[in-house]
């Protein structure tokens, strides 16, 4: 694309390139994207990559649901079922959610703090390609899982890969190796990107933007990146140990030689639980940008929002063993992890209160991003409540590894994270492409997905309470879970339809969407001060800010924010 100064001054017009640049071939375009170090291109690549795997992981979920729809079903073999839930979990966390979350950080953080790019653009490209390679390696197991010559097979050890299932004796062939290596390489990419985001936010903010004048999104990503450093690294270490066990014959998780299977659980969940917050805090970040703009009010309690996020970051580092109540810890351990888990409810409760406070008395516009955000608020509240139920150790003993747990964490991951990712796509799509996503299709997407989500995951709590364990490939008819499971499956079909509408909407709007202009939502943060899509250098002149809402100050010179902050 041809960046020109005209884009910047052209405040309301289309910011699509107008210059008659010589037509490029497909390969030249492809080459440009492969070698790019531009944070916006890399951000979009992360997002497209994440959406692609969201569809793949969604298809796997659909197959799982079809198998479970009726009792005594033989659509899928038990072996294939194990592979499906392993690949579904691993794909959704490492190949869909993480790239989506980092993609938005890549695209938005430099724009929102008035910087030209991330602090280390080439490291950024390196991080993306590492993550992409990790994903390919995981799916390569479908071809090379049993060794290159034989037929492939996907890993089937579950997404948390408990020992001793992962030992050579129980995981023959290479599918588990592909799982380990794919996750390990992806985690290197995540750590590199997190370091980059931290350096960008701490070093490259535009003049006037003190930490407490920064929009909430970069603030929350600063916390998330810090958590990535502390939480993803233990996973890296544990994966190295697993590789040593599998290839060099060490005994970290080998109980026959005195090793401990429980140690793997600890190491995995030291990563695994903060990971939930690594994914949900970006959802909070999107909500903290979208809800104020569509309520026409500044965020309620900005310093408290920052403080609550930091508190969540700290507390979430000490809750991991609530995944292990059923393993048998001391009562002191149980009490500690139950209480620390319940403590997380306080800062998250404060956040929900503040978002509602932002909406309170506001002039709310129910555009698609806001619809998803409102649904997020309600669903995240419910997800938090079942979370507190599961944090009580005795209750947990009863329901551990049941569909109640599955329903709970899908409420967090789909109901909160995926809903806010959808909101963010609708909100920032015009900035990235210059075209609005279609509102009518957006509503269809929203309502179909909302109905499907509640049909699946509200009902899924009940078979859990009735005792249906997770990871079973089928069940007997006399259990009485048949009707409930059928309804869950119907809901999954609704969700799939919603997701397909989103994909269709993206393609259609890219081709003939309504022109967005620079600032379609009348928003206040710096990314809306430049053209849509932004030129490669982002801002023709380095912006200077005096408040948290620089564009408000610009639009209302007689009543600027900095007088009150």
């Amino acid at each position, binding site marked *: 694309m041809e960046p020109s100064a005209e884009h910047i001054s052209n405040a309301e017009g289309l910011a699509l390139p107008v210059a008659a640049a010589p037509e490029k071939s497909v390969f030249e375009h492809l080459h440009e994207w492969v070698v790019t170090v531009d944070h916006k291109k890399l951000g979009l690549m992360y997002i497209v990559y994440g959406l692609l795997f969201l569809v793949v992981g969604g298809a796997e979920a659909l197959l799982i649901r079809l198998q479970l729809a009726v009792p005594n079903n033989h659509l899928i073999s038990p072996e294939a079922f194990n592979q499906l839930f392993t690949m579904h979990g691993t794909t959704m966390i490492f190949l869909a959610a993480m790239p989506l979350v980092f993609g938005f950080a890549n695209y938005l953080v430099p724009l929102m703090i008035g910087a030209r790019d991330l602090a*280390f653009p080439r490291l950024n490209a390196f991080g993306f390609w590492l993550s992409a390679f990790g994903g390919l390696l995981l799916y390569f197991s479908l071809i090379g899982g049993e060794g290159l010559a034989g037929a492939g097979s996907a890993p089937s050890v579950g997404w948390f890969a408990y020992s001793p299932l992962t030992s050579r004796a129980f995981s023959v062939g290479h599918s588990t190796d592909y799982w380990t290596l794919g996750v390990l390489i992806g985690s290197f990419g995540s750590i590199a990107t997190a370091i980059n985001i931290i350096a960008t936010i701490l*070093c490259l903010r535009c003049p006037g933007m003190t930490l407490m004048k920064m929009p909430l999104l970069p603030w929350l990503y600063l916390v998330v990146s810090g958590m990535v*450093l502390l939480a993803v690294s233990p996973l890296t270490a544990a994966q*190295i140990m697993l590789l040593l066990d599998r290839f060099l014959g060490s005994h970290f998780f080998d109980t026959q030689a005195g090793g401990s299977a429980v140690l793997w659980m600890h190491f995995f969940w030291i990563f695994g639980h903060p990971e939930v917050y690594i994914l949900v805090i970006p959802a909070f970040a999107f909500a903290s940008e979208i809800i104020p703009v569509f309520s026409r009010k500044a965020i309620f309690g900005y310093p408290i929002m920052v403080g609550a996020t930091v508190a969540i970051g700290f507390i979430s580092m000490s809750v991991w063993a609530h995944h292990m109540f059923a393993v048998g810890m001391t009562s002191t351990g149980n009490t500690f992890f139950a209480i620390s888990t319940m403590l997380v409810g306080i800062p998250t409760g404060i956040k929900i209160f503040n978002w509602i406070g932002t909406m309170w008395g506001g002039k709310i516009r129910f555009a698609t991003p806001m619809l998803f955000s409102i649904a997020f608020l309600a669903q995240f509240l419910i997800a938090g409540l079942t979370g507190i139920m599961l944090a009580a150790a005795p209750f947990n003993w009863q329901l551990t590894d049941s569909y109640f747990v599955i329903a709970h964490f899908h409420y967090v991951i789909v109901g909160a994270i995926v809903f806010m990712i959808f909101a963010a796509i609708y909100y920032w799509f015009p900035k990235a492409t210059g075209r609005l996503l279609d509102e009518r299709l957006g509503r269809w997407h929203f309502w179909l997905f909302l109905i499907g989500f509640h049909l699946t995951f509200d009902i899924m709590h009940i078979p859990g309470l009735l005792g249906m364990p997770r990871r079973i490939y089928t069940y007997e008819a006399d259990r009485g879970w048949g009707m409930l499971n059928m309804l869950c499956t119907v809901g999954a079909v609704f969700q799939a339809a919603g997701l397909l509408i989103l994909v269709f909407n993206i393609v259609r709007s890219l081709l003939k969407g309504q022109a967005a202009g*620079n600032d379609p939502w009348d928003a206040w943060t710096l990314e809306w001060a430049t053209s849509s899509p932004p030129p490669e250098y982002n801002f023709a002149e380095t*912006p200077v800010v005096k408040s948290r809402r620089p564009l408000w100050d610009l639009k209302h010179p007689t009543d600027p924010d900095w007088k009150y902050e």
Partner: protein
Amino acid sequence: MNTIAANSTPELTAGPSLSRGPVAMAGLIIAESAIFTIFIVAYLFYLGKSLSGPTPQEVLKVPIVNTICLLSSSVTITCAVRALGRGRNLSFGVWWFATMALGSYFLFGTGREWMRLIYEKGLTIGTNLFGTTFYSLVGLHASHVIVGLAALLVVLALTACGAVQTAHAKRIEVVAIYWHFVDAIWVVVFTVVYIIGR
């Protein structure tokens, strides 16, 4: 939207004063510390839980010369960075080379220790839990020394070409921070393996 960058009060024209190199290195060190923490926890957790010999008490010798070498390389690299800051390029090169020599000797010493343990004492990574945790923890540290030496070598090669000048002192210092980290983590590994574990 040019007005957003319009003339404003002078105190608003400067961004944050932190520079990206040290901040990123600090981030890397935090991540690396977390990795080491997991390996150290595993070492301490499995201490004395081996089902068969040899035990640390039987086979480990305290690597005093090695440790002195590695720790003094922190001093030499500080001298090197200081010399570069004062424009004494030759002195920088000499101190830098001395750092590499000390680091290489440490690596050599570790190699000799492993040779002795493997061929004389019959301790490999698969022998028992002590072997598993010992080789992985000390090996993790040694691999960091190797990465550090590679970085030092790049700087040395650039110095030999005359490409490293006083203007680069800040960047060279980032490499030095990493080297200090490698030394500092050895103090912890040394304490865990050779003092607590022995």
